[in-house]
């Protein structure tokens, strides 16, 4: 069972199906946030429906771009033999 599930996900032929499933899940997640009670919200953004989805996407993009910028422009990434001499 596990093997066939993993094989299904890994098979390049199923990329289209997986994409559809993925988009469905994204829409479902986004919409579900509009149908919950928000009695525990403390900060104002917690009261905005869809805030989690927005913040998650922005965080992901910011983390990737900022890290790669620091890595390449900031001189953090070095050749693998940097310490060997």
């Amino acid at each position, binding site marked *: 069972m596990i093997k066939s599930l993993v094989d299904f996900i890994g098979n390049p032929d199923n990329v289209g199906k997986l994409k559809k499933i993925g988009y469905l899940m994204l829409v479902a997640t986004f919409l579900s*946030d509009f149908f919950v009670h928000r009695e525990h919200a403390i900060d104002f953004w917690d009261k905005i429906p869809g805030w989690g989805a927005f913040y998650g996407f922005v965080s*992901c993009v910011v983390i*990737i771009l900022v890290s790669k910028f620091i890595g390449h422009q900031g001189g953090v990434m070095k050749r*693998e033999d940097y310490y060997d001499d």
Partner: protein
Amino acid sequence: MIDWFHPSILFILGAFLIPFLRGKVQQVYLMMIPALAIVSVAFMSQGTFWSYSFAGTPLVFGAVDKLSIVFGWVFTIAALIGIVYALHVKDSGQHMAAFLYIGGSLGVTFAGDYLTLFVFWELMAFASVFLVFAKREKKAIEAGFRYILVHVFGGVCLLGGIMLHYVHTHSLTVGPMPNDGSLAFYLMLIGVMVNAAVPPLHAWLTDAYPEGTVTGSVFMSAYTTKTAVYVLVRVFPGTDLLVWLGTIMALYGVVYAVLENDCRRLLAYHIISQVGYMVAGVGIGTELSLNGSVSHAFAHILYKGLLFMGAGAVIEMTGKRKLTELGGLYKTMPITLVLYMIGGFAISAFPLFSGFVTKSMVIAGASQDHKPIVALLLLMASAGTFLHTGLKLPYYMFFAKDSGIRAKEPPLNMLIAMGMAAFMCIAIGVFPGALYRLLPYAVHFNPYSGEHVTSSLGILMFTGLGFFMLLKKLDPEPTISVDTDWVYRKGSRVFMWIVNKPFAIYENYLSNIYNTWFTRFTLFFSNFLAKIFDVRFIDGFVNGVADFFMNLAQTIRVSGSGLVRNYAFTMLLGSVIILTYLIFC
């Protein structure tokens, strides 16, 4: 019936029997010790046990309360899982090192005074380094030496702080320290921060953990940082500095994880990130946030162990550790993949997995303590956690381009250990009440409110969207990242350059002056002494004395002729002189 039994005794004394056992007997023995330790924690009651007086100060080996018991639970459970994962290893030395390391960790957990705590603290450092040395490769041995040197530095800071604290307070009892700004406070804090891997004192972790043996690094991922978190919760709750250090840690680990190519180093950066939540929770210092730190440490030990076991299984079976060299393993290692992903979902805080019920306590603690920025930044770091541990690493290791490697699943014992950890990750996520009851303060927190579930899923799912949109940018690159260990890896070379170049020139200049003036003058003076003073005066005096006595002897020889008549004549002459003197004077 003994009222209390120290689980460290089992591990520390038990370690010395390991080399005398072989095969199946050894394997059963290795599993029996952690199992007995779990039993000893299960029957533990609160109180103070095993206190002795040493040179006038009380040593307390068993200070037991809810906080130490909850760490006792997770340390012994992690010991059992780690040992099962390492059962196939024939190297008794590694098992001994692991046992002593675990014993040290439990010793710190139940220590009631700072002296006992320090001794077990050092035992941990010196035992764990052998899990790195045991790889027996040049890089590992070098990393091990750097590891132990950093920990010796941390240990000295801690001991210095303890001594100053004792001088001021005449007490060694482990307990919350008020932040009085004293040197003692900061030295102790630095000593503990080294072990908690708080930047900039963190680089030993990402340097050494990926170099350890496959099984050794699983132990290392569990104990050192989390023992430090325990001490932070015990001694430094509510230290404001830790709020920001923890938040920076959480993001720092995430940024470096983006750049990392070595799979276990990527996971090691996520230890720093996750311990950041715990450190921030300690800094906030409310009951909710401290509960969050403790429960997150509990969950973290299990899912991080699982992730290290998954990555270790891949390294064990393929011999490769870089994401650029791996890929397409899903075909032959599906079980490893699924078990790894359970750890990945747990660390990413998916609902129904352990991270969800613990990490959110720390973030809620920040919100309720009116630190919205801290809460937002910690939430951002959790998006980064899913991005790397849940998406990037498994994607490039098990899917992506096919590397052509057809590695088999790891040995059964490794899979069973991963299964045990995966079971715990899900069990805690589904039944958080059991863990919440163990926490030091009463819990009034429900992670499964509708809004929390949907907004968490929103963050995670849209992080996934961002990942696949920017996939090209995330391709691993065959590089290494410079971190603060540069200071003692390259920085030592700067020091050597200063010694070799400017210092050497200066030294050369000085020796020229010395040669020109001092040596020449000395040589001239010593020549004078040797040729003139020595010959004329010293030798002259000695020779003169000798000549005098030789001449005297020559003269006396005349009288010493050996003829009896001469002696008789001399005696007669002497008698005549004496008699003349007596008669006429």
